[in-house]
Structures are given as structure tokens and as C-alpha cells.
């Protein structure tokens, strides 16, 4: 077995592996979007976050503009606080914007739906660290069913 062949084949092996890593990074894990550019942080308080998780998407009309960075419980009023990290390129949302927790499809995963508000004079843009005031919680199926039964009971 000659030396050159060994080196060549090991070289091929290394190149194949680099190819595999690139495939996994770019095509499978889509490394580019998660790490692309700077982000700024917004906070939102919800009554109930349902099945929202860290790294869930933040979307405006289906376009991903950021991800959930962390979920904590506010120690004073015991409501969940969601930290959103939003790509810097989308930094002109007005203060009147609202967020809600939505579900993609019937059984799909939950994401944060971002509803940009109207930009009128006197309304400033959201800045790093701001709290979104207008939030809608996740729909919890059990609550819905409970409400439905309750309403039916009243109407009869």
C-alpha cells in the first residue's frame, strides 16, 4: 500500500466530512438565519404562553423576523415574560404593535405572531429593551371547550 494512496484517500475522507458538515449546517440546520446579523431585544408579558418554547419563531405575516430568546416568570406579578430577539434589519416597528401566540395548523408548533401597529405622529418606534403592551395569550383548548359548554348552559 503506497504512501501516496493513503494520503489521497484520507484527504478524500476529510473533504467528504467537510461536505457533510456544510450540508448539515446550511441545508439542515440553516445556520445562516439563526446567526445572521445583530438582533435587538423586546419583551412581552402574556397571561398564558401555552406551548411556546425557546427558539420558537417570531413572524410578521409568515415572515420570520426573530426568535424567542427566553421565557421567564415575572417574580412580582407572576406572569410569564417572553424575551424576543428581533433581527436588527426590522427595527422600525411602532410602539402600538401587538403580539399574540398562534399555532401553525391544528397540531403544529406554536409561534409568536407579531402585528405591526399604525405609525401615526407622536408614536415612537420600539427600541431595544421595550415592553410590548398589547399581547394576546395562547388559546388553550381546554379553556375553549369549557367556555363553550358554559355558554351553552347559559343560553338554554
Amino acid at each position, binding site marked *: 500500500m503506497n504512501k501516496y494512496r*493513503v*494520503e489521497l*484517500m*484520507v484527504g*478524500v*475522507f*476529510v473533504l*467528504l*466530512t467537510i*461536505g*457533510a*458538515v456544510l*450540508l*448539515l*449546517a446550511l*441545508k*439542515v*440546520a*440553516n*445556520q445562516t*438565519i*439563526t446567526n445572521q446579523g445583530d438582533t435587538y431585544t423586546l419583551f412581552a408579558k402574556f397571561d398564558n404562553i401555552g406551548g411556546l*418554547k425557546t*427558539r420558537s*419563531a417570531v413572524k410578521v405575516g409568515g415572515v*420570520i423576523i426573530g426568535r424567542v430568546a427566553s421565557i421567564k416568570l415575572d417574580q412580582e406579578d407572576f406572569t410569564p415574560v417572553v424575551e424576543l430577539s428581533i433581527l436588527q434589519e426590522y427595527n422600525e416597528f411602532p410602539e402600538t404593535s401587538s403580539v399574540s401566540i398562534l399555532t401553525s395548523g391544528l*397540531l403544529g408548533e406554536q409561534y409568536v405572531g407579531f402585528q405591526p401597529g399604525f405609525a401615526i405622529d407622536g408614536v415612537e418606534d420600539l427600541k431595544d429593551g421595550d415592553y410590548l403592551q398589547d399581547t394576546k395569550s395562547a388559546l388553550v383548548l381546554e379553556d375553549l371547550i369549557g367556555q363553550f359548554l358554559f355558554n351553552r348552559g347559559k343560553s338554554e
Partner: protein
Amino acid sequence: MNAIHALGVKTISRFAAAGRAALMLFGALFAIPRMKNVYLTVKQIYVVGVQSLLIILVSGLFIGMVMALQGYTILVDYGAEASLGPMVALSLLRELGPVVTALLFAGRAGSALTAEIGLMKATEQLSSLEMMAVDPLRRVVAPRFWAGLISMPMLALLFSAIGILGGHLVGVDWLGVDSGSYWSIMQSTVDFDKDVINGVIKSLVFAIVVTWIAIFKGYDCIPTSEGISKATTETVVFSSLAVLGLDFVLTALMFGIE
């Protein structure tokens, strides 16, 4: 009394073997590296890595294809066949890639390492090295250990990558899942750090364990044909069990708590 005595003897000999294994590893790892040994390592990467490529690639391809087939028949009942991509990718990256690679590696390369070193011992090649004032730990053990350590994570990555392509082949090209959703849902679900890197870390741990067991079994075997065959069997059995056991521990540590 005899049974207790035998148990005691056995326990003590196990501890002694563990001690010898540790000493061997330290002797090999802390040997002063020399340029010559780099080439020896490259040559061993050829033997344990490149020569395992075929079995790894073929297995990876078929496992990816089978998973797509199985996953599709289940997911399509819920109308969730778009989730086929993440299912295939996550199972491969987190579990099957590192684990199956380690098991195949133990069978393909580990047993060969044990038999080779065992035979070198039986034919007095190791003794002969020592008498030539060449440390067999540095000359024989260290290059093989490093080669195993380097090769296995590479093989595991290739296994996962070709498995995902195999899943694409069956899921998208044959069963008609939308190619765009196969990739895009995979992309939004798979996290590079959490899934890919953790898989590589797993694979690295398995590489240490399997290569260590394989080399030690060869180095410590009774130098007869019977001893070598026993050592080779033990390599495959012990490293497979160690891989599966460690996999549970590592999975619990990495993915257990969200």
C-alpha cells in the same frame, strides 16, 4: 467459601485490568509526540476511517430511507407528512448517527484493531519493539487511538448527512412529500448547536470508549489464537454495551431537560 473466593479474585482482577487500561491510555497519550507519529496516525485514519467509509455510507443511506418510509406511513395519517424532514434529521443527528456509527465501528474497525494488536503481541512484535528501545505505546497504541478518535465523529457526520439525503430520496422523490417543506421545516426545527454539535460530542465520547476498549483488549490479551479470538469477541460485546449504556446517560444530560 470457594464461590466467594472466586468472586473476590475475579473482582480484584477486574480492578487490576481497569488500572492497566488507564495506565496504557496515559502512557499513549502523554508520550512525546513526534512528526513521524503524525504520519502513522494518518495511516491509521486510512485503516480505521477510510476503510469503514463504505459500510457507514451504505448503512446510513438505507437507515435514512427506511426511516422516511416508516415515518411517512405514520405521519400521513395525521396529515403531518411535512414533518418527515425534522423526524429523519433529528433521529439521525441525535441518536442513530452517533450510535449506529459506533456499533458499526466497533464491529468493523474495533475488532480489527484488537486482532491486529493481539497478533502483534503473539508474534512478539510488541516485545521486539520494546527491545529495540521503541515504546510500543507511542509507536503502536497512540496513533491508533488518535485515529479512532478523529475518524469516528467524521463517520457519524457522514452517516447522518447521507441518511438525510436517503430520507429525501424516499420521502420526496418517491412518496411525494414537498421538497421545500422537507428542507424548510427541517431547518426551522434542527438547531446546529443543540442537535449537530451534541451529536458530534456523543460520537466523540463513543470514539474514546470504543477505541480504548479495542486497543486495550488487544494489548492485554493472552497471546494465543484462542486468547485473541476471545479478546476480539469481547471488544465487540463490551464496546456495544458501553455505547448503548453511555448513550442513555448522554441523552439524559443533553436533551433530558429542556
